[in-house]
């Protein structure tokens, strides 16, 4: 079967991630949630420890840890610290906690770098199924709530005046980001998940005239990054996850530069 080929599985997994990360990443960019994405993504390493310690699936452990950090952030965002500081504490604290906790796992051999930087070439059929379900879930929810999410992003009061609950929409995005983290850790690794959210969306911005256009272009940018990144990493014998992000960054610089020449 074609799915037996590890390159094909890597390609499919990357494509699925790009499709989900594109539109979701647009919201991360619009709502300035980049640092929030980092905090949840870094918690993923701790999630990996949980998974291995309690022998549950990596997906479940990571989802649990990412959601946990998101909820803690919501609870502790008081008046003493700015959101920026809180997120900084959470992002780095979670990462450090994850790295320390992994070292306690003496009876399991953990290849830490595969969780930090991803291991897309090791995506198995089961992983592919998880990624496909996660991506489908994210896309369905985004599609279902699209107008509400946009309104709540533009102005919370406006959303409320039209009978929507802005907090529900914000919570929903948190849930989707946590899901994406759990799906993406295998592909780009905990350290670069936020990159997969932000960079394709940012690269799409100069090419779009509407929110929907930007989401669609972000998917295209993500797909180009994944396919070109995989090919390049094969050629250069470089790690696949980081190579994908390098390509995305090159695209970002390219579309940004082009739009400068066009007109401002």
């Amino acid at each position, binding site marked *: 079967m074609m799915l037996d080929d590890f390159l094909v599985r890597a390609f499919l997994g990357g494509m699925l991630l790009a499709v989900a990360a594109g539109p979701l990443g*647009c919201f991360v*960019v*619009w709502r300035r949630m980049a640092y929030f994405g980092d905090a949840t993504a870094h918690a993923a390493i701790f999630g990996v420890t949980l998974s291995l310690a309690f022998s549950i699936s990596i997906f479940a452990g990571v989802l649990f840890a990412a959601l946990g950090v998101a909820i803690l952030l919501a609870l502790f965002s008081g*008046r003493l610290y700015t959101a920026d500081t809180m997120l900084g504490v959470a992002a780095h604290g979670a990462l450090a906690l994850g790295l320390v906790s992994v070292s306690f796992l003496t009876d399991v051999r953990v290849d830490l770098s595969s969780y930090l930087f991803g291991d897309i070439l090791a995506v198995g059929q089961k992983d592919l199924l998880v990624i496909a379900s996660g991506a489908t879930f994210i896309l369905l929810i985004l599609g279902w709530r699209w*107008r509400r999410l*946009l*309104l709540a*992003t*533009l*102005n*919370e*009061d*406006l959303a*409320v*005046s*039209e009978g929507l609950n*802005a907090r529900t929409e914000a919570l929903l995005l948190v849930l989707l980001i946590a899901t994406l983290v759990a799906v993406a850790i295998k592909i780009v690794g905990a350290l670069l998940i936020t990159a997969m959210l932000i960079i394709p969306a940012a690269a799409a*911005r100069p090419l*779009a*005239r*509407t*929110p*929907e*256009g*930007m989401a669609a272009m972000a998917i295209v940018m993500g797909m180009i990054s994944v396919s070109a990144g995989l090919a390049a990493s094969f050629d250069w014998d470089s790690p696949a996850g980081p190579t994908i992000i390098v390509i995305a960054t090159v695209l970002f610089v390219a579309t940004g530069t082009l739009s400068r020449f066009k007109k401002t």
Partner: protein
Amino acid sequence: MTLIATQGVSVQIGAKQILTNVDLSIGRGEIVTLVGPNGSGKTTLLKVLIGAQTPTRGAVMREAGLRIGYVPQRLAIERAMPMTVSRWLALSGFASTAERKRIAERVGIFPLLDQQMANLSGGEFQRALLAHALLIQPDLLVLDEPTQGLDQPAVAAFYRLIDEVRREQRCAVLMVSHDLHVVMRSSDHVICLNGHVCCQGTPTLVSAAPEYQALFGFGTEGALALYRHEHDHRHDHLESQHDA
């Protein structure tokens, strides 16, 4: 007929008492204007009415199925989110393309439909916000300082437009405004707010009220000062020249 009313609404945020015991009611087709100094709780009161702020005490009564068209003070359309005027209008929900075109024509932004929201001038942007609110087919139009940052002719034109569309759409209007002269000319009912309702009534009545004059000075409509206003409550927080 009352569209929306508050009864004894108080709002406390943290240790700060923003609103105390506010009663008001807005009837169908009425233009009600909220005036008051900065920090007097105008925006908070609007938020209570549109449901974005839960009162600490008191109640808000809405007519069943009340539709509110809200024009916020600011909209976070940053450069990060591309948004054409026409997409912005479509975001209002379910109005048909023809209806969107008609409203765009009506508020004078039809030629701008393909423009990016971020590239509009202040006046055009306000019209685009108004158009979105109108497409909801509101019973009540709520505007938070809609003419902020507009020059005089634009302000006058904007208020004329609001007056016209509310007649056409038969909706009530509630707005916060600093343009006292315009307010006094075009409102049915004025509420003077300073943490609580200082005074309210027809423009003539309010502009003559000592509470209003203590807040805004006597200059606004001198001729109306003949009216004697009876107090039903004290104003200890005002350096009142008149409280008995």
